[in-house]
C-alpha cells in the first residue's frame, strides 16, 4: 500500500513541477506578500507633506514651524497665505496636513493668554490622518512646554507608556503571523480544492475511483505534497520575518511549528471539503476565494481589529480558523507563551478539524458512493 501511495505522491509532484504556476503561488506569493506588507503597512511615517498658513509670521511661530520641519516626520512643501489657498492644496492632493497659525501668535502666547493652532488633515485616509494629527499635536505641546519660560507648572502628572511585546510598534510583528495564516489558507485549501476539482473535471477521478485505491488514499495522496510544500513555505515566511523584519520567536519553536501544522491540516480539510462540493476548478477557485481568502484577511484580526467590528461580524469571525491561529502565533512568537496560555485556541482548531473531517467524509460518501 505504501508503494501505491508513493506512486501517487510522485505523480502529484510531477504535476506541480510541470505547472510552474503552482510553485510561484507556493513560494513566490509568500515572498511578495511579506515584502509588500512589510514595506507598505507601517505605523511610522516620514516626510508627510505639510503646508503652513502662518498668519502671524513672527519669531515664535517661525520657530515652531522650524521645529516641526526638523523632526523629519514632516516635509514642508509649501507656505500658503490664505485658508482658501490651503484648501486648494488639499484638493490637489499635494499636502496631507496643514497648520494654521493665527495672527498675533507670539503676542497672545507671551502675554499668557491662550492662543490656538489649527491642524487640518486629509481624512480620506483616516488612519494616516489620525497618526499625523497625534504626531503634530505632540510636537506642539512640547514646543509649548519649552517656550512657556520659567513659569513652573505647580504640579504635574507624568504619563509613562509602555508598549508591551512590540515596543517599537513595528507593523511586522502583526503582519508576519497574519501572512503565514493567509498563505497556508491559500496554498493548502485553494490548491487542494483545485487539484481535486481538476481530476473531476478531466474525468481522471473516475479512473482513480475505479482502481483498487481506497478513496481515502486518493485524497491523502493528493494533499500530502501540498501539505509539505505549504509547510516549507510557512517556515520560509517565519525566517524571512526574522531576518528582514526582526520578528522574533520568543516562545517555543516546536510549539509554533506544531500549531502551524495543525492549522495547515485544518486548511487542507477545508480544501478537500470544498472539492467534494465543487464540480469544476472555477467553482473551487471562486469558493476558496470568497469563503476562505477574504474572511482570513478581513475577519481574522489580521488587518482589522475584531474588537471594533459590529457584533454580526465578530460572531462570524469565531468560525474563521485563522483568527485562532494568529492568536497562537502572536502569543508564542511575541509573548513567549507556552501551551498553557494557548491551549484554548488549539482546542478550537482541533474541534474545527474534527467537524470538517466528519462533514467531508459524509459528503465524500454521498458524492462517490451513490
Amino acid at each position, binding site marked *: 500500500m505504501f*508503494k*501505491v501511495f*508513493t*506512486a*501517487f505522491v*510522485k*505523480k502529484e509532484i*510531477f*504535476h506541480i513541477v*510541470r*505547472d510552474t504556476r503552482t510553485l510561484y503561488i507556493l513560494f513566490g506569493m509568500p515572498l511578495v506578500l511579506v515584502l509588500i506588507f512589510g514595506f507598505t503597512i507601517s505605523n511610522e511615517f516620514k516626510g508627510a507633506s505639510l503646508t503652513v498658513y502662518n498668519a502671524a509670521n513672527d519669531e515664535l511661530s517661525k520657530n515652531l514651524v522650524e521645529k516641526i520641519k526638523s523632526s523629519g516626520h514632516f516635509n514642508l512643501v509649501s507656505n500658503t497665505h490664505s485658508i482658501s489657498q490651503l484648501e486648494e492644496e488639499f484638493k490637489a492632493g499635494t499636502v496631507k496636513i496643514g497648520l494654521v497659525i493665527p495672527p498675533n501668535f507670539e503676542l497672545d502666547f507671551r502675554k499668557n493668554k491662550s492662543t490656538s493652532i489649527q491642524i487640518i488633515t486629509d481624512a480620506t485616509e483616516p488612519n494616516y490622518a489620525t497618526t499625523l494629527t497625534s504626531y503634530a499635536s505632540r510636537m506642539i505641546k512640547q514646543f509649548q512646554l519649552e517656550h512657556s519660560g520659567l513659569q513652573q507648572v505647580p504640579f504635574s502628572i507624568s504619563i509613562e507608556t509602555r508598549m508591551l511585546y512590540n515596543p517599537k510598534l513595528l507593523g511586522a510583528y502583526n503582519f508576519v503571523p497574519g501572512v503565514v495564516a493567509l498563505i497556508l489558507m491559500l496554498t493548502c485549501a485553494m490548491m487542494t480544492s483545485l487539484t481535486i476539482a481538476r481530476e473531476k473535471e*478531466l*474525468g*481522471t477521478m*473516475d*479512473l*482513480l*475511483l*475505479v*482502481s*483498487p*485505491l481506497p478513496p481515502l488514499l486518493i485524497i491523502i495522496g493528493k494533499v500530502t505534497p501540498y501539505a509539505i510544500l505549504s509547510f516549507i513555505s510557512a517556515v520560509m515566511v517565519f525566517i524571512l520575518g526574522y531576518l528582514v523584519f526582526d520578528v522574533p520567536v520568543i516562545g517555543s519553536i516546536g510549539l509554533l511549528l506544531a500549531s502551524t501544522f495543525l492549522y495547515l491540516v485544518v486548511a487542507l480539510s477545508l480544501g478537500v471539503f470544498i472539492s467534494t462540493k465543487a464540480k469544476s476548478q472555477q467553482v473551487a477557485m471562486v469558493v476558496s476565494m470568497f469563503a476562505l481568502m477574504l474572511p482570513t484577511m478581513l475577519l481574522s484580526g489580521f488587518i482589522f481589529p475584531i474588537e471594533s467590528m459590529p457584533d454580526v461580524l465578530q460572531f462570524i469571525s469565531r468560525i474563521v480558523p485563522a483568527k485562532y491561529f494568529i492568536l497562537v502565533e502572536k502569543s508564542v512568537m511575541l509573548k513567549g507563551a507556552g501551551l498553557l496560555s494557548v491551549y484554548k485556541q488549539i482546542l478550537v482548531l482541533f474541534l474545527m478539524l474534527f467537524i470538517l473531517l466528519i462533514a467531508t467524509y459524509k459528503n465524500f460518501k454521498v458524492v*462517490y*458512493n*451513490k
Partner: protein
Amino acid sequence: MNNNLAIQTKNLTKKFGDFTAVNAITFDVSKGEIFGFLGANGAGKTTAIKMLNGLSKPTSGIATVAGFDVNTETEKIKKNIGYMSQKFSLYEDLSIWQNIRFYGGIYGLKRFELKLKKQEIADKLELGSRLNKVVADLPLGWKQKLAFAVANIHQPKIIFLDEPTGGVDPATRRQFWEMIYEAADNGTTIFVTTHYMDEAEYCNRISIMVDGRIDALGSPKELKQEFKSATMNDVFLKLARN
C-alpha cells in the same frame, strides 16, 4: 454460477428517488466476448456501468463481475477490471512514461513489470522515442490508443470502455478496434458503449437500452433479423422511437 461468464446480472435496478435510471436489467457476458452496450443518451448506460464497476450500489437486483458480487465485493472487482471513460482520461500534463508508471503503480505493478509494459506499449503504438513527451502533444487518436493500453496495463479480466472512440477519425477507430480484438483474443472480456453503429457491428453481441430497460439483446445479425432492418442504425432508430 457459470464459470464461463464474465458478467452476470439479474434484475439489476438503480433508483434515484422516484426516477428509475436502470430498470431490472438482466444479461450475461461470456469470457472473451466483445459486448456492445448501446442506448441513447440518458438511457441509463453510465449508471449501469457504474454499478458494474463498484462505484454505485444497486437499489435492488444482483450482479457479479469477474465472479465477484457488486454488492459486497467491490474491492475485488476493482482489481480485476480496467476502465476507459468517454472523457479522455490520462494526465495531459504528464509524459507518456509518467502516465504508464502512475497507472501501473496504482495497480501494484512491480518495477520490472513496468519496464516490460513500457516497452510493450511503445512497440505496439510505435511510440519510438516519444515516451517522454507530454501526452497533451499527441494526436487524439493516439491518446485514445494509449488510454486503452493503460486501461489494459494490469491485464484485467474485463475492460469497460465508455464511448472510447468519440471524436476519433474512422481510420484510427479501425486501429482502435484492432486493439480491442487483440485483447479479446487474449481472453479479455470487452464491455463497450458506443454511439457509432458501424462499431456495433464489430461486437459479438449487443444490448440496446431504452429508458432504463434492455429492449434488445443478441448478435448484430440476430437483431437485424428480429427488427427486419438492413443496418444496425435502423434497429437502433426503431427501438429509440417506440
